[in-house]
């Protein structure tokens, strides 16, 4: 393996002082980044740290505002992906750039078709692809239509597409985000094969395990800046995690001992099937009491979104029951659920939680616009709406020129505060909060955390879904780990650790099903 003796050589690619601005954001802030020939280089950082932006600059998709890129020590401009391809740089995007109705071969060759007088030579293309795929150790049917293939296979097609263009440098953007554990295993194999063939690989990730397993070196980004490059052998997950978040990871929110009261919600045997009949939410039961925070930890896409959206009336369960203080709210209408005192901070701020072309006031009543205090049978009570909104803007310290400003001109943190303000202003008994601090700045995070804990202290219940383990552990009382739609472990927040939850989140361990159910329903012993 070429790991040990390459650090002192000149880097193959060097990016210096890269700046990239988007409206309102400095996505890359004088970033330096370099890659050695033949290495596997991980680029890590939280969501929004600027990793993808940097790579899109390198690949010519974005034009940089300032900075210089050197390839083989020669300064050059990469003005579009074509130019990057000519340098031997290829990119596997997070959202695949494949044309679903076309065949595998057509997709791989697109833009570099094998043709005679403009007429496609599909036989030749097929042979070349079979050859290429066997080189790196997998089989593929060049004639299959991409839309019929699994995500894992599509990713391989993307890799083949890059190799077909004779790329020597492969950039992979969060390649494992969409893969099953088995598929991740075979991706590792492919990448190792590629390294042995002398290819250089840059992969973007926020999973530190992958960095440790796969990479030679790692560069960490935070808030648009690069905060350092390390040899993987000389660093640890803890060090990298600290570099990523820029503060002690064990930031714990002050949390008083909860005064647990009456049971607020009892959900039993919730199951939700998708169109294909697979269980997206699989036999989930839990209960939450007053003054209690019930956390759900899990990797994105394990059924959390569907669970919450069905609890709040956006979606429907296929079976199971939801009772809120003895009234049956199974698959109830969203309006009814709100009237029963259940608030919902959705995970997708912009595409669920608010309407960016609405004013602050209009957003402040979204979902509650039918409530008596905001509307009569026909008309909206515009003045009352505005008064309530103004009060909330003040109380929650939302930075906005006025309540008539369109929500789109607020910063992400203030948009999130607006949503939190809306939901908390209705005095819900139970608040369902999904990723309440995603993509907002540290100050806003602390504010949101404080407000949530205040609600807990007032005896409100909270169902918290987050992929940030720190957040889950520091805010929750009890924690369920969700994996493939199922609760597979129940933990007391005081007695667990990120490491333990992490193991469960990947599905590598699970507790006894009955035991989990019993704990989730908060039954002290089976006989109770």
């Amino acid at each position: 393996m070429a790991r040990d003796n390459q650090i002192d050589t000149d880097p193959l690619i060097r990016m210096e002082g890269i700046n990239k601005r988007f409206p309102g954001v400095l996505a890359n802030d004088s970033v330096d980044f370099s890659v050695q020939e033949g290495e596997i280089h991980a680029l890590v950082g939280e969501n929004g740290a600027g990793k993808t932006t940097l790579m899109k600059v390198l690949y010519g998709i974005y034009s940089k505002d300032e900075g210089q890129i050197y390839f083989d020590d020669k300064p050059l401009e990469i003005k579009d992906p074509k130019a990057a391809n000519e340098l031997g740089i290829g990119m596997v995007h997070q959202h695949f750039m494949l044309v679903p109705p076309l065949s595998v071969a057509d997709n791989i060759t697109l833009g570099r078709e094998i043709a005679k007088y403009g007429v496609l030579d599909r036989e030749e293309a097929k042979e070349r692809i079979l050859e290429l795929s066997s080189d790196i150790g997998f089989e593929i049917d060049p004639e299959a239509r991409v839309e019929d293939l699994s995500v894992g296979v599509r990713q391989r097609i993307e890799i083949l597409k890059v190799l077909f263009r004779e790329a020597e440098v492969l950039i992979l953007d969060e390649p494992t985000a969409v893969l099953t554990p088995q598929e991740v295993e075979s991706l590792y194999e492919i990448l190792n094969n590629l390294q042995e063939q002398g290819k250089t690989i840059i992969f973007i990730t926020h999973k530190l395990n992958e960095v440790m397993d796969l990479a030679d070196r790692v560069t960490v980004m935070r808030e648009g800046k690069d905060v350092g490059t390390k040899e993987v052998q000389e660093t640890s997950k803890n060090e990298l995690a600290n570099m990523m978040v820029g503060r002690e990871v064990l930031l714990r929110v002050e949390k008083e001992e909860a005064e647990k009261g009456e049971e607020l919600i009892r959900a039993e045997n919730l199951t939700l099937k998708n169109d294909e009949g697979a269980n997206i939410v699989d036999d989930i039961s839990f209960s939450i009491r007053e003054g209690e925070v019930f956390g759900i930890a899990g990797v994105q896409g394990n059924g959390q979104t569907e669970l919450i959206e069905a609890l709040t009336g956006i979606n429907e369960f296929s079976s199971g029951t939801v009772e809120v203080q003895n009234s049956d709210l199974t698959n109830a209408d969203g309006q009814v659920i709100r009237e029963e005192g259940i608030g919902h901070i959705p995970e997708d701020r912009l595409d669920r939680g608010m309407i960016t072309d609405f004013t602050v006031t209009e957003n402040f009543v979204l979902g509650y616009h039918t409530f008596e205090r905001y509307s009569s049978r026909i008309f909206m009570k515009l003045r009352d709406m505005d008064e309530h909104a103004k009060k909330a803007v003040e109380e929650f310290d939302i930075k906005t020129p006025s309540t008539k400003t369109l929500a789109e001109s607020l910063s992400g943190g203030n948009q999130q505060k607006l949503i939190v303000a809306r939901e908390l202003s209705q005095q819900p008994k139970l608040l369902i909060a999904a990723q309440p601090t995603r993509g907002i700045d540290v100050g806003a995070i602390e504010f949101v955390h404080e407000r949530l804990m205040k609600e807990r202290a007032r005896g409100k219940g909270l169902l918290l879904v987050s992929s940030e383990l720190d957040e889950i552990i520091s805010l929750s009382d009890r924690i369920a780990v969700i994996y493939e739609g199922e609760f597979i472990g129940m933990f007391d927040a005081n007695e667990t650790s990120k490491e333990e939850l992490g193991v469960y989140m990947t599905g590598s361990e699970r507790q006894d099903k009955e035991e989990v159910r019993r704990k989730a329903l908060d039954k002290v012993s089976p006989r109770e």
Partner: protein
Amino acid sequence: MNSESRRDLLFNVLMNGVAPLVAILIAFAIGGIVITSLGTNPFAFFSRMLSLNFGSMRGISQMIYRATPYFFTAMALSFAFKAGLFNIGAEGQMFVGGLALAWVGFTFTWLPFPILFILCLVAGFLGGALWGAIPGYLKVKRGAHEVITTIMMNFIAIALVQYIVQNHFMNPDWGIPHTPTVAEGAYAPSLGKIIPWFPAGTRANIMFLVAIILAGLTLVLLQRTKLGYEIRATGLNPNSAEYAGINISSRTVMTMAISGGFAGMATANFILGPGSHYFLKSEYGGIGFSGIAVGLLGRNNPLGIILAAILFGFLENGALGVQLYFPNVPRQIVEIMQAIILIVLVIVLEIARKFLKRLQKRG
């Protein structure tokens, strides 16, 4: 003034003021060039048009008479737009509504004014609403895109209306197929009868006032009612509307129905207003499609649409009158200009949008 509200102001001025004006100016410039090439002085031509329209109360009334139907078909487009829907079917909705309102007018002949008049309008609204609701329903239930279905519904309406008129209402002695005439109780009073400074007997009629009232009501509906809030939410972001517990399907169908209803009343100006008092299909062709131009030129705002409709009325009425003075310039020159306004407008709007975006990026 802070930077955000300054940006909002700039946005409004550019998109709602400058862009439509530039489009209109370019259309007049091109029209002028064409007129010059026919050996006519364009300034003489357009100033004659101006005096024909604005030189007398009679001219103004004629212009209003021509403008009125455009308001309704334009509102059909724009109202649907508010809910994120693209209703290209005003033409068909107009025909179905028109036949419905004529039918009520010549069937319930014993009813007095204004009862019959109002019933006719309701029938027109309902006819158009039905024709608009169908594509809405097909979109909600079967995912059929409303652009294509409304286009197809236009042609179905044209054939259907022709069939009904020809086979059920037509008297073979009439020569051209039209319906029987509506009863007097359905007549829309001439503006001359209501407003003193309009000439007596002008064809401009109360439908213009109905249009203004509807523009106001629409603003109230959209900005001040619960239904309007939900319609706008659905149009701006269906996912967030769904989160807010809004029934998107019902709002979609309802919006398409209201939208179609507007178009359904477009021909009331001709059928109920002073004139022939019957439904004559061939007289109305194209008003639905031109409404698209009027709606966009009015920037989908009811008040803007009144202005845009008046501009179209100005062009059309002017073209009819100006022929006497400049017989070598066919009046179809204004159709060309109307089309140019529309195509230039969409281009100018995009340029303005790009300019604003660059401005935003910089500051």
